[in-house]
């Protein structure tokens, strides 16, 4: 039986196990939308802006480990996806973006709503396709999903001309993919693994840095085994958060620009750095020439191009993190590094993550901490970008894999709400909190309409400081306190949520924080809390850009509140 291109697409998506598409219609994809009702197993969620569709697919993919799917029409629909695709690219998130294109005879004619989206997304996709005959559609879809989720995952875009959706052909879904130029190295080289084991077994002051690759590879247990067996402190990158239980005795939190002081000190002082599934981003390493000056570096990553890209590496291992760790762990006998652990513990005692003062005003760190307590650390936290993101990373402790979802590489304001939406759709049984900045939230808040229409029970905590806070912090510290274009006059978020039929509360006093969170969680459905917080609160510790990780600027006012002290893991 012959099927149309649109039907073939839907059949193929089902074959790939797709259950939800985040999309937005338009002329070029109308034939596809008209076909969707024939496939009720494909749930379509109508976003309010295509950027939201890409972020939602991204959030869905991060929490489920499956490929997220977004859909947009040609021209502006496709170009609106760009930020979301770039975001997924930098954070290695498997999404497949499907775009409509003008009909084949119009391609290259500057037709209505024509953009060269394969050209535009060339540097921000793992691969992309323009499908010029319907016969190749099943193969392309098969390849796209395969490329997106295997190796180093990433976004793949499929551009489909309108008339290809309408053309008919026999449908055969390929069993296998044949891509001669794509064979990711999964198994680490045994000789390299042996070398790594030797340096690990001889190290006196080893540190593990765990990145998002550990989460992607599902190597949570293997990482834990390595750390425990050889007694090695584990530090994560921002995106590595939740790859190692933060309540674990060997967990020393996040490193980098706003990392824990003791984590950065440990990286600075270690004699061996075992970097796993991370890519030495400049926000993590700070000044490269001053990075881990005394350390030999073992780097495990699936992408050979990451080896030696930013820092010199002594023992590179290319392979899937989980497989490499399984092999490596066999060569690691139990070891102790008591003196070293004591040293790092001592740094933690001397330089705890502090919250400066008790304040009448609501402190943003306190909000995050209360969220931690009241969700018992079991929520999936999705963040905006800026200070809110850093506080969410610092003051919530993540024990479950993939429970911290954040835009790391691109730092995309507006990521929070749509990504939280995707995360909740992917994990309907988990509590999903979006911790957002008042600036970030306003970039994509129209998705309130989506979470209302589809009753996606995302809880939103807007950290409302009336500023583009992170930029204001830099202006305060590096630009003589000249707050140019950072003060925000915000709308009344409670009224706004109300207009979108999302129940909301405003919190202005410390004692209201916990009850409001409880009320939000009791409510069966989406809920928003506008936390009006101390406007000029800064994020500490802070390693200024261009300085070495060891040059840590700490909170100047060291009046430690009880909760922050006692809760230091």
């Amino acid at each position: 039986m012959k099927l149309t291109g649109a039907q073939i697409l839907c059949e193929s998506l089902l074959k790939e196990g797709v259950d939800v598409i985040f999309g937005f219609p338009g002329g070029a994809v109308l034939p596809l939308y008209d076909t969707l009702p024939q496939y009720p197993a494909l749930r379509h969620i109508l976003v309010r802006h295509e950027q939201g569709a890409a972020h939602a697919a991204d959030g869905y993919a991060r929490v489920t480990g499956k490929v997220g799917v977004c859909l947009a029409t040609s021209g502006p629909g496709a170009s609106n996806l760009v930020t979301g695709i770039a975001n997924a690219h930098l954070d290695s998130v498997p999404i497949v973006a499907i775009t409509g294109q003008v009909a084949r005879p119009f391609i290259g004619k500057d037709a209505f709503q024509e953009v060269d989206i394969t050209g535009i997304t060339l540097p921000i996709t793992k691969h992309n396709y323009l499908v010029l005959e319907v016969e190749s559609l099943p193969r392309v879809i098969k390849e796209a999903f395969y490329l997106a989720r295997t190796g180093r995952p990433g976004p793949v875009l499929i551009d489909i001309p309108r008339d290809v959706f309408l053309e008919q052909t026999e449908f055969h879904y390929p069993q296998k993919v044949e891509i001669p130029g794509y064979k990711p190295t999964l198994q680490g080289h045994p000789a390299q693994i042996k070398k790594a084991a030797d340096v690990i077994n001889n190290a006196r002051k080893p540190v593990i840095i765990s990145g998002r690759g550990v989460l992607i590879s599902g190597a949570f247990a293997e990482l834990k085994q390595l750390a425990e067996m050889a007694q090695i402190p584990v530090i994560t990158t921002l995106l590595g958060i939740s790859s190692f239980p933060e309540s674990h005795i060997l967990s020393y939190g996040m490193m980098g620009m706003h990392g824990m002081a003791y984590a950065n000190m440990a990286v600075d002082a270690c004699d061996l750095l075992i970097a796993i599934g991370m890519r030495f981003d400049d926000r993590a390493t700070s000044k490269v020439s001053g990075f881990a000056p005394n350390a030999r570096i073992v780097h495990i990553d699936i992408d050979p191009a990451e080896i030696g890209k930013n820092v010199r590496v002594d023992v590179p291992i290319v392979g899937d993190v989980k497989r490499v760790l399984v092999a490596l762990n066999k060569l690691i006998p139990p070891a102790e590094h008591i003196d070293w652990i004591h040293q790092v513990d001592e740094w933690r005692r001397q330089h705890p993550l502090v919250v400066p003062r008790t304040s009448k005003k609501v402190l943003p760190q306190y909000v995050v901490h209360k969220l931690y307590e009241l969700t018992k650390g079991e929520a999936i936290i999705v963040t905006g970008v800026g200070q809110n993101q850093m506080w969410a990373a610092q003051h919530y402790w993540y024990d479950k894999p993939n429970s911290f979802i954040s835009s790391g590489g691109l730092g995309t304001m507006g990521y929070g709400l749509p990504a939280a939406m995707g995360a909740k759709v992917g994990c309907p049984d988990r509590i999903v909190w979006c911790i957002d900045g008042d600036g970030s939230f306003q970039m994509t808040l129209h998705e309130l309409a989506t979470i209302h229409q589809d009753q996606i029970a995302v809880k939103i905590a807007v950290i409302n400081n009336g500023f583009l806070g992170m930029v204001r912090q830099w202006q305060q510290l590096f630009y003589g306190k000249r707050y140019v274009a950072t003060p925000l006059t915000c709308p009344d978020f409670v009224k706004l949520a109300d207009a979108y039929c999302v129940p909301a509360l405003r919190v202005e006093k410390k004692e209201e924080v916990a009850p409001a969170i409880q009320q939000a969680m009791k409510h069966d459905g989406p809920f928003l809390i506008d936390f009006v917080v101390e406007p000029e609160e800064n994020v500490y510790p802070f390693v200024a850009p261009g300085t070495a990780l060891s040059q840590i600027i700490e909170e100047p006012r060291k009046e430690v509140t009880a909760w922050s002290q006692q809760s230091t893991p």
Partner: protein
Amino acid sequence: MVPTKHTLVALVEDKPGVLNRMVSLFRRRGFNIASIAVGSSELSGFSRVTFVVDGPLAMVEQVRKQLGKVVDVVKVSDITEENIVIRELALVKVKATSATRSEIIQIVDVFRSDIVDVAQDSLTIEVTGAEQKIESLLDLLRTFGIKEIVRTGCIAMTRGGAGTANGSTKGRDNEQTP
């Protein structure tokens, strides 16, 4: 001295945009291409590309690995250190008068190159060889006045029985293929 010019050979799928994917990568990552030459290979559906890249070894390694990540690229090898044949073709239009013509022809003979067109006031010379040979010829011809130069960029192949860029990738980090 460490050579800064590296010769990379890639076997790529003959797909629309494959050249664009590779070249855009050079631009985006700030790699310097000295030359690039593309043509069909012995395998149907595949082309072979020769890049000459200028830069320190670490950068060239990055080029090789980043090229390897392009899905349509099957294989990339840095063959600089191997025993290779490198050739480039150049066409040179040089000013010629009755007084200089015979001298030019002598030079052309010495370089075992050919005159492919003769006009009233110019000669067009076709020369094939390694880059150095072409540069030396151009140096000599410059005194007569060069009107136009067209060069193909280098193509390269390893000597002996082994194929170029369809065997193993020469990597330093234990990776088999990207």
